[in-house]
């Protein structure tokens, strides 16, 4: 096999790790709160700015900066839920979609206002690994491994803890859980915080690879939705698998043509797959 193609495939797998993390966060929120956060990728952007300013401007050590960013974005998730989601919980789904769409406009423009449109890099230069004359970015490798750890941690959290059980219960039947003595509002807040924390974690990993700018959310946002829908909204394992399917399409497509056409192909394939499996690839 062509060595460059193999390199593209490996990079695709590594990209899939970060996408999976984001897809899990978005899916968790959708599955439990039943609202699609259109602005999810822009919350990631906030986390990237936090890391940039803490680390590159104020000299906070990188691990601490990442920790603060994760906690901060988790807090932002709670704030988004309280200020925007809670008032529209009983509205038609369209209005919920639009409310978070308004948040997207707000976050992108507010970031433009505060930080300007220039691209900023946190300036961490990680080595590029050479393996059998293939080049693999170390930052991507870290992102992949941490992304997988995050996914496993989420799985354990949902399966093994009391709150996790409550979260799964609420996703199955939101009328009954109230009778079982579960505080629905508290679970929503926990889920928004966890979803935010996953976005924060993704922000740490993305900040190592990409420059941050106010519109970086537009690069990842549509792809993440596509992944979630393809896996079946709310279906965690489906979303996880779909992340790698889509990242492979983008990586291999990018190898044969250019990046935009690879995305065109991924989106077109997504549309076609939705016709074949309207409830997602892995719907029962």
């Amino acid at each position, binding site marked *: 096999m062509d060595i460059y193609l193999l390199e593209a495939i490996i990079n695709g797998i590594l990209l899939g790790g970060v996408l999976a993390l984001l897809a899990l966060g978005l899916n968790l929120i959708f599955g439990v709160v039943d609202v699609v956060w259109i602005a999810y990728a822009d919350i990631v952007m906030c986390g990237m700015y936090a890391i940039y300013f803490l680390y590159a401007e104020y000299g906070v050590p990188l691990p601490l900066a990442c920790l603060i960013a994760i906690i901060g974005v988790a807090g932002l998730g709670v704030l988004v839920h309280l200020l925007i989601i809670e008032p529209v919980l009983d509205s038609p*789904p369209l209005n919920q979609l639009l409310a978070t769409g*308004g948040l997207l*406009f707000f976050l992108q423009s507010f970031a433009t206002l505060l930080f300007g449109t220039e691209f900023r890099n946190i300036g961490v230069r990680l080595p590029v690994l050479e393996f059998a004359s293939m080049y693999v970015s170390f930052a991507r490798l870290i992102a992949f491994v941490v992304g997988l750890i995050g996914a496993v941690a989420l799985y354990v959290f949902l399966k093994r803890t009391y709150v996790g059980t409550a979260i799964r219960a609420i996703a199955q039947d939101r009328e009954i859980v109230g009778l079982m003595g579960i505080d629905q509002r508290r679970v929503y807040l926990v889920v928004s915080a966890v979803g935010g924390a996953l976005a924060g974690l993704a922000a740490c990993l993305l900040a190592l690879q990409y420059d941050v700018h106010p519109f970086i959310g537009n690069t990842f946002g549509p792809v993440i939705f596509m992944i979630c829908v393809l896996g079946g909204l709310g279906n965690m394992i489906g979303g996880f698998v779909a992340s790698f399917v889509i990242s492979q399409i983008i990586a291999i497509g990018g190898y044969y043509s250019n990046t935009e056409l690879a995305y065109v192909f991924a989106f077109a394939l997504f549309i076609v797959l939705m016709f074949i499996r309207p409830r997602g690839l892995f719907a029962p």
Partner: protein
Amino acid sequence: MSGTRALWLAGIAILIALPAVIPTYFLHLVIQILIWAFIYTAWALMGRFGFVSFGHGAFVGVGAYVPALLWTYFDVTPWLGIPLAVVASVLLAVIVGYPCFRRRVVGHYFALVTLALSQVVLLSLVAARDVTGGSLGFTQKTVGHSWYALQFPDKIYFYVIAVLLWLAGLWVWRWIDRGIGREALEAISEDEDAAAAVGIDVMREKMRVTIVSAALTAVGGAIYGQYFMYLNPETVSGIAVSLQIVFAAIAGGVYSLLGPSVGALLTLSLTEGLRVWFGTNYIGAANTIYGILLVLCIIFMPQGIVGALQRIRPRRGSQPKPVAATTPGGITT
């Protein structure tokens, strides 16, 4: 009814008098508002029945680029180019719409499939940068004043075109609103199976309104392209434009004739006003406020501005209806 008619006549009289009294800059703004009002009205044809398309950016993009490219590279007059753009748009709408309806892709899924469609058009335009200029945009070949090329240096021509276009859009809205198809579509948006059971041809009704909506949107995009002469993928296609359409139409109200136009008037004058107010010192300030207002509007006025006004002063036969509910979520691990 005579009161309403008098209001309409007064409105049209103002539109006729407008270019004589306002400066060119405002005329430019009014033309934009009218073109977008037309596009938002076209979107609302579908949106009011719960088919919330996030893909109309695709039709605007096709409508704008097809005549522009044909004219610049092959000297094809927009008089032929625009119908071709409409055909292309309708084809796109059928290719995506038919399977969507056939396979019952609804709610979030429909929104996101159509979102993908607008991304496909945006990214294709960027990817074909040898022809379209990519993200740098595309400037059409200019010939000065020409009916053949549909190019007029004087804004008044485009003002007349935009007014006629807008009125035509309203007429189509009313035509659908008055027709039996409206009852059928409302029945479909409430319960598709029940609608089919009473003998409504669900597919036919859905496809008809989708095709009309896509065709009109393409015409709007084409006139926008003819007016501006400069096209950029980001301003005529993709998620941003799709969201802009959905927001403005919803903000104005999709259940009333003038709702989407009010949405266009308010959102465009607001963004323009904020842009002028803040100038270039605070880039982003205008849209920051715009974003906050959008969220507030969705939370506190879910039926749109015109809908909210109508709720205060209810009128016969124009009761706002909630958008159809969709699939519930769920989580499986």
